[in-house]
């Protein structure tokens, strides 16, 4: 990614969202657990919304996109055992998989932001994208905290 422009960076992010949506759609097909199916469908739809948001991105979005929304960062993904995509995942595994995926995407954008520190616009863009992934991870971790960990 040496000849990166804002447009190509956004297209890269869009591709990430498409891959994620496709992954959740395929896992939804394979799942037999209604609780997991529901989450897969929600995650797929969420990624599609993210993709659409990115496609309509313009420079003004730097200011208005979630910049003031506080991050929770419960760090659940730091210590939960990694879940790999597979057939018939449970509700719990589905949430862990999704949170870990958001964490990985966050790490990718954070790395890119670090790499493009010399370019103010790209730095801002990747920092913003990284932050958005953390917000998505927050949403999934909060859901995990409310459901799987409701008794803990």
């Amino acid at each position: 990614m040496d000849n990166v422009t804002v447009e190509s960076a956004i297209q890269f992010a869009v591709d990430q969202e498409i891959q994620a949506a496709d992954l959740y759609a395929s896992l939804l097909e394979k799942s037999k657990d209604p609780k997991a199916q529901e989450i897969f469908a929600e995650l797929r739809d969420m990624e599609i919304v993210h993709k659409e948001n990115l496609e309509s991105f313009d420079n003004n979005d730097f200011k208005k996109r979630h910049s003031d929304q506080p991050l929770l960062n419960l760090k659940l993904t730091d210590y939960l055992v990694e879940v790999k995509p597979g057939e018939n995942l449970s509700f719990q595994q589905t949430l862990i998989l999704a949170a870990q995926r958001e964490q990985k995407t966050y790490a990718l954008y954070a790395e890119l932001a670090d790499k493009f520190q010399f370019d103010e616009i790209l730095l801002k863009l990747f920092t913003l994208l990284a932050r958005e992934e953390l917000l998505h991870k927050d949403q999934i971790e909060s859901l995990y905290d409310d459901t799987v960990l409701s008794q803990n």
Partner: protein
Amino acid sequence: MAFNLKGILAPFTALKQLGKPPHTVEYPMVKKPTAERYRGFHYNELEECIGCGTCGTICQNGAIDMISLDGIEGKTGDSGLRPRVDNGRCCWCGLCVDVCPTGSLSLTQDYLYVTDDADSFLWIPGVDNPKGGEIKSFYPETNAESLLDYARIPMPELEGMERVKSFAEVVLGYTQDEAQAEAERCISCGLCVEACPEHMHIPEYINAISRGEADMAVKIIYDNNPLGELCGKVCTRRCEDVCSIAVRGEPIAIRWLKRYATEQAANIDIIREMVDPQILPPNGHKVGIIGAGPSGLTAGYYLALKGYDVTIYEAKEHGGGMTMYGIPKYRLPMESLQKQIGYMESIGVKIRFNTKIGVDISFEELQKEHGALFIGIGFEVPYTIGIEGEHFEGSIQAVNFLRDVNAEKPVEIGKNVVVIGGGNVAIDGARIARRFGSDVTILYRRRVEDMPADWEEIEGAEEEGVHILTQAIPLGILADDTGKVTSIKYGMAEMVDDGKGGRPRPRLIEGDEHIMPVDNIIGAIGQEADYSFIPDAIKEQIEFSRGRMVTGDLKETKLPWLFAGGDIANNTADAISAIADGYKAVKGIEKLFAQKGQE
């Protein structure tokens, strides 16, 4: 003519008054001060009042009625009504004030009321005199001045360290005298009825107990709850949370009173005698119920009473669901549950034990055989802790541990045990491990006040020597070369605001990690349902939300012949809510067959 000295001095006596200041009563500009405990017009602290209506009930003149007011909505524990006083009937005896359980009602120094409507004597305390609180004169300042008894009759129970020596029931139960004394504290306001998911007839059966009529109390209890003894022992008792007496004192021991009454029915024959069930002749309709937990048993019982041919299919050896296999016997003895289920069987409920749907009989077969199906399978599949090392020998799940102990299967549990979780299952697991002689620590991610477990269970665990370590997050399980658990790694948490007004969430503090040597780790973070027995084609037609079946008011699913209740269809996941679901489903199933009959 006699000498009249008084007549001579009288003018001078009058002149004496000339030097004194005038003594004019400036009424009505300045009102005459009242006595300290004067009983003038009523005043009501509208925010403190819970609309229990006790003031109106005790009024000997029928001077108080309860009315709706703009801006005051009813909610659990508050009827939303407020008293209105007819001053034309009031005799200012003050009984209404003496029995007000919240202390919101008082009498004031105010005695002046002017209106051009000669027929208007109706007065809404607190509304018609919003500043009456500044001139309160007659009100019980302490509980001792009230006519109510705010102290609960203590429930006798085994002492903490005595309990852990056996699985004997911890609670010993009220004697008749104790039960009557406790029942007499009740003011029959009925706020508890709304709070109870099953809307049991609580004031009625408590009144029966206070009269010494336990048999009548049992009959009343069975009117809409066939598992009254179960609830008398382990109910989550939301009724007590809203008891009006609890505003200034200890709530009526509703659960323990129910326990007292139902325990008087010592066997199936006595239950039948007390309840005197009216069983309608067979109506030819067959209903299948999957799961003999509280919801399925309740649905089965009331359907059988109404003449339905009911069969409950239970995968396990005994009925009761999680109440049989998940609640320790020191809280709910097996004999108690079996007696209640035996009574249901005696009135015609058929239960096929050891019958697993999808294995012993297919779902499609059940559908074909019955005009309606009810599913009440509960949440029996535990979530894993989800950390490294959970597969090691010695790391177990609380629901499996409880099930094996209750089924009297041999269990191996080491000296040092850690339980992960803060719900009732975790507490039960911890207290059982104590009974096996283990030193037990509960690791809980949040604070004690966040624990979903019943506070009495938490206290009981601590009394029995269970140590609770809060804001501790399990991070990994360590084992020796043979794969046997040796210790648990955990990290401390800080509580962070979720930004949405919800309960704070725990976040791991980097670097604050610890190792605790243990022999066993018992996971108890929560459970979910296993729907694998339902064919995919059927599942696709049912609406689910967060793993629960979405049902209507009468527990109907999107499929007209399929009903669901208990943990899989409500968010409260307790026995009384399951019982309420079963009861509602009976109405739904009746409606279904009535509609079929019209087709």
